[in-house]
């Protein structure tokens, strides 16, 4: 079976600074994969490279089609949705408008039904549907960002540090919801995360990123048992 996402020898950076130095990994359809790494290892750059926000070298293949060099507005049309770090909600638009924008690329008749579905999954959003997004708490905005990305009906959801700035209990709730998203709606998730314990608990496989290359890969259980991973990322 060909993987949903196949990244080979990816290189990317900002101006003269090279961040990714030839990284390769895959995500299968319906799978949850986590990329662990310290600050500055290149986690955000990896996500931004896949969704087309920065210039890259190497190959990024989604479902058999190369998307390298494509713009973000085209890549989302290939079924890859990106929840950016810091959430990236439209803060001065209402919750409902944010969700409608999530479905911007769709022309089918099920948009309203999908919106109702995400209001069921995230009842807080329903309560605040007519309020501007910027007035909500960080956790609520993260839910909105995820629901907005899901409104494009992606096959692959890219999540950049979803736990950033959230209280521990809120983070746990969020990861439980991500797990449901994966199991019930069948979306593949690629999560880059500093909170390694939580991320590995919902993932099938994981990679460890150091200085722009993959240094360890394996199943979530293998990574949890790996001595060097435990020391560096799990704090055990």
């Amino acid at each position: 079976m060909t993987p949903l996402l196949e990244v080979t020898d990816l290189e990317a950076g900002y101006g003269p600074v090279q961040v990714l130095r030839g990284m390769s990994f895959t995500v299968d359809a319906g799978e949850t994969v986590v990329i662990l790494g310290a600050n500055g290892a290149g986690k955000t750059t990896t996500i931004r490279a896949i969704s087309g926000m920065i210039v890259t070298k190497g190959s990024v293949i989604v479902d058999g089609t190369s998307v390298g060099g494509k713009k973000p507005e085209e890549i989302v049309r290939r079924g890859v949705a990106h929840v950016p770090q810091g959430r990236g909600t439209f803060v001065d638009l209402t919750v409902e408008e944010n969700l409608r924008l999530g479905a911007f690329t769709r022309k089918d008749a099920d948009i309203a039904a999908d919106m109702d579905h995400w209001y069921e999954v995230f009842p807080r959003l329903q309560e605040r549907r007519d309020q501007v997004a910027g007035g909500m708490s960080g956790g609520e905005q993260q839910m909105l960002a995820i629901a907005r990305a899901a409104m494009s009906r992606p096959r692959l959801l890219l999540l950049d540090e979803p736990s950033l700035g959230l209280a521990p209990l809120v983070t746990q709730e969020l990861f439980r919801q991500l797990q449901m998203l994966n199991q019930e709606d069948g979306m593949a998730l690629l999560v880059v995360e500093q909170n390694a314990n939580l991320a590995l608990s919902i993932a099938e496989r994981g990679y460890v990123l150091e200085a722009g290359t993959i240094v360890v890969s394996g199943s979530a259980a293998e990574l949890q048992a790996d001595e060097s991973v435990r020391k560096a990322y799990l704090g055990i």
Partner: protein
Amino acid sequence: MELFFQQVINGIQSGAIYAALALAIVLVFRSTSILNFAQGEIAMFSTFVAWQLQDAGLPIALAILGAMVVSVVGGAIIEVTIIRPVGNENPLAIVIVTIGLFIAINALAGWVYGTDGRTFPRIFSNDPLVEWGDVSLTGETTGIVGILLVVVGLLYLLFQKTKVGLAMRAVSSNAESARLVGIRIGRILMLGWGLAAALGALAGSLAAPQLSLSQNLMLSVLVYSFAAATLGGFDSPLGAVVGGLIVGITQNLAGQYIDFFDGFELASAFLLILIVLLVRPQGLFGSKVVTRV
């Protein structure tokens, strides 16, 4: 007292024109964070297009509509060929570019059409429609205010009720996220500049009958419109309209009652800008975006 009311009515008429150009400035600022100093000159050139069309035999209302359509295309072309290549990283560079555009369009108009003023036909009659004693309301004032209301209504429908309007608001809210949800922002920016140019064409065509059409048609109008946008808040269409009306009334009253030095009318606009920047920099309706993290 009658003089006072007459000046208020006159002020509303000029204010409606300032509001239209201020709306154009706000439209561009909201989507691109660019203060387009050339907006008035683009409007002046569009007004010459309207003049050309009516000179060729079109009724004046149709000529203005035609000029607005031409301006949509012209505004979009300016965005793609002149503004976009400069990029958004250096705000100073883009300010210089719009000032350069200002000078270039002004010179181009002088070169093509000469420097003498031309008469521009009225759409609405300047005769009194209603009279209360010495105070009169002309058909022109009523018509101009009516057009402004229709424009505001159409813009409201565009922004609040259509998908492309929602996309325009998304781009001005967060351009990066707009791309991530699949909005092709290049097209949205072209549309924003095109719409702004069409509004400018309208403002210029409404101002030209009183001011006479020349390359300098919009110089003072631009100052008043900037005052209006500053007063109302650069990111608020409602603010542009309210600001335009306040500036128009202030200008007319200042011209009537303050005579210790000539030209206080224009100075009143600068004074207003100064006071707003000191007291409430975001303007009456502008927003300081509050984000909780």
